[in-house]
């Protein structure tokens, strides 16, 4: 396997004397920092923590479903476990995953700025996340919540005696953390670009974050007011969603999915940005159809706001609106397909190498395509009635969210790890982890498509015995998947001290972030860069580095 890694001579290589990591020391310098890079690291630590809590919940679910009977957990405990898994993974891992960590770290550097436009609001966003996280942990400690992550009314408002109010408020607060991140990105991308950094010289990573930020800023407030109404209905007893007072539970569904469908694109779009960067770098080619990929991100953001009712086809919306929403759902597949085709065309005749980020990116391409296409199945009205509320849905969104977004997140973490820490991760074991993740993932979730198609409903603690074989496959796969996720935790931590010194540009990539030292200075650039080349211009890079002697230290 050929590689393009160009590390400095390891016998003489030293980390830079001054970087954002060692400019200041002590806990206070981290907790009161305004530096987007440090906040990104704080976010990375906190979302990893919640990822493994959510993962433990997933492990419990898969253990429970190993047998057809509810013999490990009581039924209501099972409800609490899958609710906690959903809430934590969606609101505390997937939504902030790429934007708040990698995006936070890179967007100012990619546009050539010293920091995000509002560093204090950025820090506030992290504190809101932590506050929401603590509320969520309180919910788990004091008896859990069993509404499902969707807070469906009137179940959540009338029929449950669990911590719905605290959980709702936790999501409300986490939502504001997300709004502030999105707002910061939009202002930074509009107002902080370096001289010469035109919109069409921005890396596609920035474009996809811009689109996701629009969704965060416009969608999240609607979720916030919806949760306020649910909380008021539980505490005071106002009746907006209560049929006995004339309220309408379907209105809750409309308002909730008005956010929560775009939230799917909040989760996936930043991942698509990572994939654009990784695929371009490891096939040494400009992303094919740059403009199309850039605009397809915006198109996904726009279409994403007009498809929400496809979550409600069986809930009694009118046939005509179901028809329109079905059509719009098919339309949103078009910009996603544009991206997939353009990435495939980028690979065509590229000088492809198979470093770990690229392996994850290939995983993304395959799994996201399956997840996306099954989404089109579910968007067609007849199929949806058969498949909705079955494991087919579960498999579909796990292919998109885990197979797509989590693969993209891990691709991004590996790709930018040398930039964030200044050290390389160990290549061999990380390739193994990437392959393990892929195998484990397919083994876990592919059987669920079959199970769902055969009619196994989701959210039940028990199932008919004839479904056991496929469930055992799925649980076995989950074990492999768990190992695939634990490995990076171990070797990335190991590499913090023992990894090879990376140097500024180990991948010979073209982005602005690769032209500065690793880890970067607190203000990113020694002087404001003047951009004269397009993104992914490998000839420019070759000319620039032709006579350059790499010095580190």
């Amino acid at each position, binding site marked *: 396997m050929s590689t393009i890694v160009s590390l400095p001579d390891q016998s003489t290589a030293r980390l830079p004397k001054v970087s954002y990591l060692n400019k200041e020391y002590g806990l206070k310098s981290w907790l009161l920092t305004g530096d987007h890079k440090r906040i990104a690291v704080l976010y990375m630590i906190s979302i990893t923590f919640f990822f493994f809590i959510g993962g433990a919940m997933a492990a419990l679910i898969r253990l429970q479903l190993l047998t057809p009977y509810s013999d490990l957990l009581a039924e209501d405990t099972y409800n609490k476990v899958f609710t906690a898994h959903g809430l934590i993974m969606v609101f505390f891992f997937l939504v902030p995953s790429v934007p708040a960590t990698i995006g936070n770290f890179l967007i100012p550097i990619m546009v050539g700025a010293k920091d995000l436009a509002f560093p204090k609001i950025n820090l506030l966003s992290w504190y809101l996340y932590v506050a929401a996280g603590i509320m969520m942990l309180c919910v788990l400690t004091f008896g859990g919540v069993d509404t499902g992550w969707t807070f469906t009314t009137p179940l959540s408002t009338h029929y449950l005696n669990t911590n719905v109010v605290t959980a709702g408020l936790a999501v409300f607060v986490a939502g504001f953390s997300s*709004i502030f991140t999105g707002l910061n990105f939009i202002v930074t991308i509009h107002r902080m670009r370096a001289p010469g950094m035109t919109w069409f010289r921005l890396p596609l990573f920035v474009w996809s974050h811009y689109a996701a930020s629009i969704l965060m800023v416009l969608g999240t407030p609607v979720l916030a007011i919806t949760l306020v109404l649910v909380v008021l209905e539980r505490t005071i007893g*106002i009746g907006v969603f209560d049929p006995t007072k004339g309220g309408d539970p379907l209105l809750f569904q409309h308002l909730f999915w008005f956010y929560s469908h775009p939230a799917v694109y909040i989760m996936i779009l930043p991942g698509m940005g990572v994939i654009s960067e990784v695929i371009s770098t490891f096939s040494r080619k400009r992303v094919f159809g740059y403009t199309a990929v850039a605009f397809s991100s915006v198109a996904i953001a726009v279409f994403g706001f007009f498809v929400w009712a496809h979550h409600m086809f069986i809930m009694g919306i009118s046939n005509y609106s179901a028809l329109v929403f079905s059509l719009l759902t098919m339309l949103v597949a078009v910009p996603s397909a544009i991206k997939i085709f353009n990435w495939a065309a980028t690979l065509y005749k590229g000088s492809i190498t198979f470093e770990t980020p690229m392996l994850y990116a290939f995983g993304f391409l395959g799994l996201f395509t399956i997840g996306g296409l099954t989404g089109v199945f579910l968007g067609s009205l007849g199929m949806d009635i058969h498949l909705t509320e079955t494991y087919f849905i579960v498999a579909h969104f796990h292919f998109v969210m885990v197979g797509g977004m989590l693969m993209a997140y891990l691709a991004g973490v590996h790709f930018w790890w040398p930039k964030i820490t200044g050290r390389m991760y160990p290549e061999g074991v990380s390739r193994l982890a990437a392959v393990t993740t892929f195998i484990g993932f397919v083994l876990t979730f592919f059987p669920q498509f079959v199970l769902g198609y055969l009619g196994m409903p989701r959210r039940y603690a028990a199932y008919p015995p004839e479904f056991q074989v496929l469930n055992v496959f799925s649980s076995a796969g989950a074990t492999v998947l768990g190992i695939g996720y634990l490995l990076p935790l171990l070797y990335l931590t190991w590499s913090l001290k023992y990894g090879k010194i990376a140097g500024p540009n180990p991948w010979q990539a073209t982005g602005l972030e690769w032209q500065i030292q690793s880890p970067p200075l607190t203000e990113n650039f020694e002087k404001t860069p003047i951009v*004269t080349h397009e993104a992914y211009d490998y000839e420019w890079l070759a000319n620039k580095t032709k006579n350059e002697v790499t010095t580190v230290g």
Partner: protein
Amino acid sequence: MDSHAIAAQTAEPAQLEHEHPAFLRHHFENVAQQREAATFGMWLFLLTEIMFFGGLFCAYLIFRNWYYPAFVAGSHTLHIWAGTLNTTLLIISSFTMAMAVHAAEVRHRTPLLRWMIITIVLGCGFLCVKAYEWHDEWVNHHVPGLNFSIREFTHTNPAYPADKPLAPDMAEKTQIYYSLYFVMTGMHALHMIIGVGLLTILLIRARAGAFTNGHIAPVENFGLYWHFVDIVWIFLFPLLYLISRHQ
């Protein structure tokens, strides 16, 4: 414009670039960029606020269409004088806030403080009137979930003798009207309380001499927020108080 032109244009030493006032944050190139970024951020934040209230207005629209008689009857129980008084207070406070921004622009500290104080007083006045109204509704058993009674709506309202009493099932639907009334005015009042709190902080800083040294962005952006909260009320007042007045 090609890149060289942009580079040349920005690299040209604009007057502002050599000015390095204390309030210029380290990550901005110049004062103009900082001010533009802050204002743009504020507008975006107001956009999120529109979406926040948008969910409520959407619910109002739907339920008003479904339960028209209940919404008329509910609307008839509100004190139109209180709503009008509050609207007046808010419009005047928007004017005084605009004057405060102007005072900051021309760097006059005393008028700035004076206009800010008047704005705070008007904001508090609004909240007092609102509190009086809520108390009144509590006394009349109009709070859904806590002490609601449909008695008043199944009989003719003496102030509107032409109104027919509602059938009991429609009278129940007045709860939806009051739910929306309390959530909408409550969320608006919450924004007012936050606004008065922020303005008090700005006032303390302005007393110490901030905002009259050319750094007006906080006052200016707070002004935007204040006007926004005002505009929300400008929509709430007709929707809740006026729209069914002559039916």
